[in-house]
């Protein structure tokens, strides 16, 4: 059994609202939010690529802010509202942002995708009309090694168009 779910190290029970559902779970004090989401909440869509805050594959939204979940302790998220990639849409009922990424071929291997999708979601929700430069700046914290970002930028632009006025 992993210590992540044992209680023989210092820890606490925390309550978070994840993708609209209230979840109560135990976490060791040393547990990072990325591992809490993946293991304790069994939401493996949040990926771990560097454990250093550099790559952005572990991006989640915490109380409305883009957060790299490998840089935050789970205990610090007690009471927070968290959105992970699983909160967008599911097979057969994708969110328009997900549809936009599919339509524009905005991913290849998909490992960076949770981060790019959630940044796109934030941009789309802001209902602005960002320039390509501004979109690239918004994506600067999220690495992709497959696409060269071009199709990701196009996907974000499409996502913004598709969510206009919704």
């Amino acid at each position, binding site marked *: *059994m*992993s210590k992540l779910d044992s209680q023989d190290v210092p820890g606490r029970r925390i309550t978070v609202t994840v993708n609209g559902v209230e979840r109560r779970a135990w976490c060791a004090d040393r547990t990072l939010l990325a591992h809490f989401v993946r293991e304790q909440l069994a939401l493996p869509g949040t990926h771990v*690529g560097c454990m250093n805050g550099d*790559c952005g594959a572990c991006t989640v939204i915490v109380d409305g802010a883009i957060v790299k979940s490998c840089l935050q302790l789970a205990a610090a998220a007690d009471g927070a509202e968290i959105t992970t990639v699983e909160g967008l849409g599911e*097979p057969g009922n994708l969110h328009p942002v997900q549809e936009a990424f599919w339509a524009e071929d905005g*991913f290849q291997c998909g*490992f960076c995708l949770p981060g790019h999708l959630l940044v796109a979601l934030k941009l789309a929700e802001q209902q602005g009309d960002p320039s390509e430069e501004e979109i690239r*700046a918004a994506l600067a914290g999220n690495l992709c*090694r497959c696409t060269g970002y071009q199709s990701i930028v196009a996907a974000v632009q499409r996502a913004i168009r598709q969510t206009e006025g919704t």
Partner: protein
Amino acid sequence: MDLMRPRAAATESDPPRRRDGELILSGRGDYLDDVRIPGLTYAAFVRSPHPHARVRGFRTAAAEAHSGVLRVLTGREAAERIGPIPHFFSPTNVGGKTTDFECLASTEVYYVGQPVAAVVATDPGDAEAAAELVEVDYDVLPPVLDAHQALQSGAPQAFSHWDDNLVVRVAFNEGDVAEAFESAPHVLRDRVKIQRYGTSPLEPRGYIAQWNPDGRLVVRASTQMPHPLRSALAAMFDLPETAVRVIAPRLGGAFGHKFHGYPEEGALCLLSRLVRAPVKWLERREDAMLVGAREMEHDLAIAFDDEGVILGLRDSIVCDVGALGTSAGWGMAFVAAMTFPGPYRVPAYDVESLVVVTNKAPWNGARGFGKESACLALERAVDLVAAELSLDAAEVRRRNFIPSTAFPYWTASKRLDSGDYQAVLDKALALGDYPELVERRRQARAAGRLAGVGIAFELTPEGGDFPGGLARGFDTSTVRMDPAGSVTVLTGVTSPGTGNETAIGQLVAAELGVSFDRVRVVQGDTDTTPYGFGNGSSRSLNLGGGAAVLAAREVRAKLVAAAAVALECDPGCIALDKDTVFREGGAQMPISDLARFVYTTSIAHPAVPYQHLEATCSYAPEQNLLHQPDSAGRTSSYPTFSNSAHVCAVEVDEHTGQVTLASYAAVDDCGVIVNPILVRGQLLGAIAMGIGGALWEEARFDDRGHPVATSFKNYLVPRSVDLPAIRVGHHTTPSPFTLLGTKGAGEGGVAGAVAAVCNAVNDAIAPLGARVSKMPLSAPNVLRAIREVTK
């Protein structure tokens, strides 16, 4: 219609989107780290802190006493329980030498980061903490950290039991080079150094090894080559291959990083056997950054006439392959030399590659696979010719290209299949607005800024076939239609995340006349798929796709024969399309009814073929592979050659050395295109990777042999803000030697990008009289080059 061409070939107006998009987009990708197995335990490795040392002994008591620890395994103990790691491709296959490489070093370590011991614990944190407690006694030995130094007599030995540090020298030559250089009106020399850097897929490697109660070893591995990994593990444990199953889940990128041959692979299987539980290990980013590639220095000379026509070429490439290891990496040194003289007609050339070991972590494959190094050197040379004669860089390339009428075209080591290099370059110049870039450069220079335009042409040998190892130029696919008319494709090629499963599904659907959604493509499980050589060398569509088309055609023939019985007509009157079987000018039936008819009626009805709707075919473009030298001494280990032209513009800050990429355009010829969305994505990604290598990425070591680049904070890969919008286009000349007319997509683009950016930066600083050919063109390196001439 050419019957050999794939029915799905190309110009489909509405190609299908990526397979499994809904799963990947919704966080249900099922990557290695997402696999849930009960009773999982976790490994951590103890790694050498020295670049070179003798291992004297281990003290493990403190680690064993750490909470949660199940087992500590030292190199000493491992050596008694597991054989050496088989080579991906041994240097001995090309006349070189090697040594035994262990999963955990027992007597000598060759690089910082080499595993010497391992710990298994019930929690990954405990495993890491306990690994810190393993004490290893070393006698430090002098390391050799530079390949040039390593070649000098009296240099330290990277492996203390070798007599020197040279693994092998490979050479390719043609014509009378001495005579060409003697009689040439012009000769220029340059030294071009490409730095050590890897590929950094966003998902690092990972493995879960377990032994089933029946004695079978089951390994889940983020690997590009499940079958060859199975072969290697079976050899290490002296097991029949049937007792080993390797499953590759969805990969989060690979680019060569996930070729097999790593020490952790066997070590984890041994650990799992010892603790009698599944053992998991995930590569940390700093571990991933140990893996080297590409560190090569070219000592280059080019002879040419007054018109810029190349008369001769010499290159001696010194390749610092680190501590060799058992992965594919060192092969890049071979391929770099073999790629010469690229797209040019060069009557006399002599190119050698020296494979040199040093005390740095070994290489593994890296997208480009040495072809980027060759391209960089060649394209620098062509630009030097243009500058020397004050000719336009595009014009010099025109004067030297192998003409489109000359294919197939032999060089010493390859037979180029087809191409129209001039047309590809012209298209790229148009797409990149070359005249406009030249005008803007003029304006920028007039305003006192350093602006440059760079051109490069890349030739990319694809689908390599290397007898003597398990890196072959053929692959195998099975196509099966079930009684309900659904289709399963099982193929030996794997996808690292590029989407070849989408294109293979498209090919099979078109051959059988069924809808794309009816076809399922299965990859990456050695219990399920035919033995195959996985992913690499842009081989997936060329070989796995070719094999799938052949198998689909066999199934189609069975369907047509049965349909002729069911619809009472001549087989020639049957058409399969849109999930329906048509009789010319009359009756029709759903394909599912026909499949059911075959399964339920054969034997009972003597005219219905007594065969399952299943076929397995292998495919190799063997017409263009030649391993026994012909009468002229020529061989060819690659069957097809994609190519691309690149045009870019940069500005350089004279005071900081900072390079800004202002525009980029490229056109490729990857032969017939099956899915333009996927091919475009491959080209864009390859170019981005090439730009990253040209400008920023560098796996540096300090002068004590310790890696400096250990995270994305000091190993800089391109971010969205670092890259301009990239314009890409295609020009298609089908390969006459591949079944589908494809040449391979995926690898092409890296090399041209490295070279085009380098040429542009050199063009920008040329007015100062400066030149830079030490990569990457990071601000410090460019500034150093500027200061050398402006001080």
